[in-house]
Structures are given as C-alpha cells and as structure tokens.
C-alpha cells in the first residue's frame, strides 16, 4: 500500500516537473536545471554520508572533475556522452582512491581529509592552465545533441536534464533497495556488527565513496553545458559545504532528502527575493529553525506532520 502511494506521488511530481517550465521564461527552466543538477550531486553525497555514514566534504571537486572532463571532450568536438562517461569513470576511480583514507579515519578526521582533497582539486584546476584554462576557466561548451534533436534551447536542455536526473534517481533507488543498499545502512548503524555478519566493510566503504563521487561527476557533466562556463571558483570548499547542507536539510539517509534539500537551497532564496535585502537573512533563519526544530530535515518534518493525526486517532480510541 505504501509503495503504491509512493508510486502515485512520484508520478504526480514527475508530471509537475514536466509542466513546470511551460509558459515560463528561460530563467525558470535554467533555475530548475540548476536544481536538478545539484540534486544529482546531493544524491551521491547522500549515498556516501546518509546511507554509508562516511562524511565527505569533497563533492564539489567531483562535480568539477565531471565538468572539466565534459568540457575538454566536448570542446574538442567529441559528443557529450563520451565526455560524461569520461567524467563519471574518472570520478568513480578518484572516489575509490579517496575512499582508502576512510578505511583508517572517521568523523572529523575524514572530513578534513576530504576537505584537503577539495582544496587540492581547486589548486590543480587553477594552476594547470594548459588543461583547465586556469583562473579564466573554460567557456563555450556546446549543449548535447540527441540524434537529430538539439538541446541548445533552454527548455530542451531542461527536459534533457530532467531525463538524466530521473535515470540517476532510478539507478540509485535500485542500489539502495539492493542488498548493497542494506549493507551500506548496516555499515552506518554498526560497523562491527556488520563485519561480524560477514559484510566486507572495506569493499563497501570504497564503493560508497566511488558511487557517490560518480554521481558528482554526472552532475558536473550537466553543469558544463548548462552554464557553458566553468572556472575553479565554482568548485571550491564552499560549494561542498553547500551540498552537505542540502543533504542535511533534506534529511540524511532519506532517498528523497537531497532532492528536497537542493530545492530549498536553489528555489527558496529565489522565492524570498521579494523581501529584497532581507532574503538571505530569512533563508538563514529558516535553515536554523528547521535544523533546531527538526534535525531529521524536511523528510523528518513531513513524517512528524503525517504521524500527528494518527497519534491523535490512537489517543481518541484509547
């Protein structure tokens, strides 16, 4: 019954996403693309942090790796699919390597290791001018062609991004519902118990990092043709912290959490712009209130609201 209700909910949301940009200007389509792109990256971080319990402050660097790989490949007149594949595979491998320190350190120490990696990526992107364009970055990346259909228009590119995001969500759903997903959760809840049950903690930790990073790479492959300009500043530590905020605000370890969290981060400041100079203050206050009143994030808040009438009904019966 619950699965049936969820399927209907997803169908309604997808239908809403299909009609959302219709009759709107390019701005709304661009904003929705930004949201979907960040949602993909946050989904990856949610797998690493929310499901497997391993903190990463390097997700922006993986968006960067994906974005630079896609830009370099497409600027050399190769198709976007190739650039995306190079970026995702590169992120998977680098994520795997970054997972090794996670086998030895936890918590704050792991946060610092990943933070250092993000800084390292930023410096490489800025200093290796011959490859990345250095401080000036890379610009003019073409948008992909799907057969005879060009996605150079903002609306066409939105539907392309939506398709990629839905595909990424379906794959992640399959992963978290598979024995791997349950093993990731076991790793997060109690590593010793997970190991005593025969789970390969080493392999799971590395996989959590690798898959989470690959999602960052996929987001980068969308960002390059979306913005059509990338520079090292777009992938600094602040962006990684912002992605962490999206995952936590949405609901850590909740499948739909990153989607909601990134919506809050991208769309709420826009909705609050009517308050002129106060909009960032109001946004910050909203986040503080949410985190202090409901540490389970937006999904946790929704669950509490949904549980209230049931509790009331139970009280009336008793």
């Amino acid at each position, binding site marked *: 019954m619950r699965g049936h209700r969820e399927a209907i909910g997803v169908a309604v949301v997808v239908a809403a996403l299909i009609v*959302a940009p219709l*009759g*709107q*200007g*390019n*701005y*709304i389509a*661009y*904003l929705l693309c*930004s949201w979907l792109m960040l949602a993909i990256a946050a989904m990856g971080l949610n797998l690493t942090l929310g499901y497997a319990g391993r903190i990463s402050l390097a997700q922006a660097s993986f968006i960067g790796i994906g974005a630079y790989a896609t830009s370099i490949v497409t600027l050399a007149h190769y198709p976007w699919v190739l650039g995306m594949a190079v970026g995702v595979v590169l992120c998977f491998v680098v994520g795997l390597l970054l997972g090794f320190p996670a086998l030895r350190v936890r918590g704050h120490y792991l946060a610092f290791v990943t933070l250092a990696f993000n800084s390292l990526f930023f410096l490489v992107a*800025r200093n290796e001018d011959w490859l990345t364009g*250095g*401080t*000036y*970055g890379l*610009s003019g990346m073409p948008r992909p062609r799907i057969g005879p259909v060009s996605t150079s228009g*903002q609306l066409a590119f939105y539907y392309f991004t939506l398709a990629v995001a839905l595909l990424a969500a379906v794959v992640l759903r399959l992963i978290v519902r598979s024995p791997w997903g349950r093993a990731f959760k076991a790793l997060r809840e109690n590593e010793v118990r997970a190991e005593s049950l025969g789970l390969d903690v080493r392999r799971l930790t590395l996989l959590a990092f690798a898959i989470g990073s690959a999602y960052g790479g996929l987001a980068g492959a969308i960002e390059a043709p979306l*913005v*059509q*300009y990338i*520079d090292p*500043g*777009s992938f600094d530590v602040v962006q990684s912290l912002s992605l962490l905020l999206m995952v936590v605000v949405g609901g850590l370890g909740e499948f739909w959490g990153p989607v909601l969290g990134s919506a809050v981060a991208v769309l709420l400041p826009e909705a609050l*712009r009517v308050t*002129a*100079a106060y*909009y*960032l203050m109001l946004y910050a206050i909203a986040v503080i209130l949410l985190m202090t009143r409901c540490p389970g994030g937006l999904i946790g808040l929704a669950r509490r609201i949904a549980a*209230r*009438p049931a509790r*009331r*009904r139970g009280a*009336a019966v008793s």
Partner: protein
Amino acid sequence: MRGFMPMRRAAVVAIAGALVAWHAPAQAQNNKTVLIPCVCELSGAGAVSGTNYRDGAHIAVNEINAAGGILGHKIVMHDYDTQTNPMVSRALVQKVVDAGAYVVMGTVYSGSTDVNMLVTEHAGVPQITGSEAPDITQKGDPYIFRTSSGSEKDIPALVDYFTQTLKVKKVAVEWVQNDFGKGGHDLFVQAIRKAGVQVVADVPSEQGQVDFSPDVAKIKQSGAQAVFVYVNEEEAARFLKEAKKQALTVPLVGDVTLTDQKVIELAGPAAEGAIAHVGLTVSAPVPSIQEFVAKFRKIYHHNTDHNGIKGYIGVYAIKYVTEMIGTFDRKAFAAKMHGLTLDAKKYPGMLLTTSWDKTGELSRESFMTQVKGGKAVVIATIPAN
C-alpha cells in the same frame, strides 16, 4: 481529525495558489516605462563594489525620471543580488532578459561578468558592466560595454610611473589569483620586464586572504624598490595594514583599488602614502565629480568609491545613446555605442568625456592618486589613450 482536515485543505489551497503564482505572467510592463535592471554583488565578497555601483545607478535613475525619463519613458530599475556567485549571476541575468530588460546594468566582479555576458550576447541585450578584467572585451561580444577602462588600458600608465617617476630597477608584485588579478598581473609583469625592470618577487594571494604577513615578509626580503599591489578592496586594506606593521617603507603602487575610499576607511592610517592609478576617483579635481560625490553622501550618508561613479555614468550613457537613436532598439543601441564619444560638456551626466571602441572598451582621462591625510589626492592627470 477536526484539526487535520482544515490543515490539509489549507495545504491544497496553498499548493494551488503557488501553481497559479508560478504560471502568472513574468512582469507586466507599462508602455511608458523602460526596464533597466541592476544585477550586481549586494552580498558576498563583492558587496562593497556592487552596492556602490547600484546606489550610483539609482541616483542617475531618479534624476532622469524626475526630468521626464528617456524618450518620455520612466526607468524601472529593480536590484538583483548575485551573492558574488557567477552561477547565480547567470540565472539572474537570464531572469531580467526574460522580463524584457532593455539594457542590463552590472555585474562588477569579472568572474561573474565572464559567465553572465554569454546570456546577454545570446539574447542581443546590451550590458553595461563595471568589470575591469582584460578578457571581458576581448571575446568579440558586441553587446558588452565597460564603465571604466580595463587593465590593459591602465598598465602602460603604471609602467611609466614606475620607470619615469619612481625610476626603480627592481619591483615586487603582490596580486590576487582571480580573473581580475591574473589579468592585471600578466599584463604588468610582461610590460615592466619589457621596460627593463626586474621583478624580484612575484607573490600571488587568495581572494579573501586574511593573513598577509608571509607575503609582506617575502617582499621585504626581496630588495624591491617598489611594490605593485593588484588585489581587491578588502585584501588591499589587509595588505596595507601588514605592510605598515612590518615597516615596509618602499612605495606601494596599485591600480584602481589601492586608494579606493573603502580601502582607506578599512586600512586607516596604514593607507597613508599608498599610490594608485585610477580611471575614476572620487577625489578627482573635477567639479562634476565632486558634485556627484556630495550628492551621494547626502542621499546615502556614506562616501562612495569609484564604483558609485561607474553606476551613475552607466545609466546616463544609456539615456544619451537611446536619445541619439530615438528608439528603444537594442541592436541599434549597441551599434551606436561602438566608436562613440560622449563629451562631458554636452552630456553632463557622463562627468568626464568618455569614448568606447568597437570592442566595448572605454577610454577617458585617468588619474594618479596618493593617500594623504586619510583622503585620495590626485597627484597627476593622464590623458585618454
């Protein structure tokens, strides 16, 4: 149960309302108004520059509207905060283009302009930027126009100052590693070496850097006879304070930011003696500029920097050019701007006679300034190049 149902209904009404609002027309435009939005840095690292640019632009808008507007149309200027984030700036420029902007004012930070100028170019909407990085006008974008000259115009004057006025043979360079700093650094190092001066210390710094003690120590040890300082406003103030602390006594010479009013306020006595070449300065001995500066102080109760002047003249340039072409035609506007000179005597809102070349690059008289008694004082005037 009774409490829950109205809540659910309220939620349905709220969602329906949100959907209606979402699909409402973007912005109704009155026939007798013209939309000139200001997209600039109102928060984040560029807030000092962006708010002054915006405030200067609004003074011009109010004056023009009070005098009847442009071709009888009142200017509508809404402000959009980019948070000094290039991606946000691109989204906002897209938003104002969708809303039917005639010309876009902003952005000031070069990193943002590099990104959002792609949108205005694609849409064919003229953009009046406060950015000064050299690459902005080197991309062949026919719709981008500066409000102050780019680094490539300023560097020759600076090189002349080092070689002919200071007569130094060894210089150190302190620069910030962003689009603005890298552009100026590369041009300066190339030109100063060509002039036979040795660069004995080349010290890059980070945007937002707080501690400049290693930078100053390195420069001090290098034996440089003068230092070229090319960093943003807040970093310039921190550098000046550290230089004073470590008793770095050689001349500190910068471009645009080093003698900026905000830098003088932040650095206090440490700014004394700093020298900079500026395209625009609030201390220029030009009556029209002094009048503007006094007007700004009266309205906003604080002093502006050169960005306030940029915003002001940007809006006036839009007015004059539109009146010349006699219509709100964006393409004709851009075509008219290329190769145009606006004489300050005939067009007083420009404050100084200003010319644009075919790339949107700007030329006008500029100044060498030095901080004396807590104020930037003009020590030399350099003719337009």
